[in-house]
């Protein structure tokens, strides 16, 4: 039973390894260039699947703040502590203390003292990293397909062994 638990709890990682090996096999063993590139894309998405699986938390929602979490700290200006900014002495506005400005003349923004529970949100760091990986993946696929078209124009085939034979026989 413990063995079954260990498999089912980490199912994403088992499938990630399987998909990654499928892609690696296709990159090595397939003869067709387009098949090789499809295998490369499958390999890349397997790695992205691994990274996104790291950021998953149990019972967590998408990493976007709710409206009341963002705007909860905006009505705390009436109490009198000004320990969080030291710029109240050198500004020259004439209208009172309710519109304080910083040294560049912009209104002072109080940092909202909102307590956000990080356990309720999935980890957004891996998501941001994997966005870049997706874009890099599609650009490498595009370059590979462009080279494939160039090879087809040169040799008339996109099979790797036929291209090798044509090169070996001096075209």
């Amino acid at each position, binding site marked *: 039973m413990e063995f079954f638990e260990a498999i089912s709890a980490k199912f994403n990682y088992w499938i990630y390894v399987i998909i990654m090996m499928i892609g690696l096999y296709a990159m090595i063993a*397939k003869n067709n260039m387009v098949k090789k590139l499809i295998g490369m894309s*499958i390999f890349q998405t397997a790695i992205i699947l691994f990274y996104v699986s790291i950021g998953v938390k149990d019972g967590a*929602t998408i990493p976007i703040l709710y409206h009341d979490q963002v705007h909860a700290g905006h009505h705390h200006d009436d109490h009198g502590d000004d320990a969080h900014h030291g710029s109240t002495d050198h500004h020259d506005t004439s209208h009172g203390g309710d519109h304080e400005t910083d040294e560049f003349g912009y209104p002072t923004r109080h940092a909202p003292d909102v307590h956000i529970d990080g356990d309720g949100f999935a980890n957004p760091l*891996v998501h941001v990293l994997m966005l870049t990986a997706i874009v890099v993946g599609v650009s490498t*696929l595009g370059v590979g397909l462009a080279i494939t078209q160039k090879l087809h124009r040169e040799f008339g085939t996109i099979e790797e062994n036929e291209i090798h034979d044509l090169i070996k026989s001096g075209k």
Partner: protein
Amino acid sequence: MIWQFDLIILVFLVITAIISLQVKDLLAASMIYGVYSFLMCLLWAGMAAVDVAFTEAAVGAGVSSVFLIATVFRTSRRSSD
């Protein structure tokens, strides 16, 4: 995420990956690769990575399939393996 969806999508991911690499027709391989990308997009939407999910839906399932189909139509459609 709901573990039944997780299980079903992951099993279909492996199936579509194997089919798109085994089928002899390259146009069919490209379309099944699009299905694979869309299943991956569903999986990431379920894993609370919505930004990755819609980037994959636009870039992976959309632009990659278009690139593959354009290449298949400009070269040859048959594959030996």
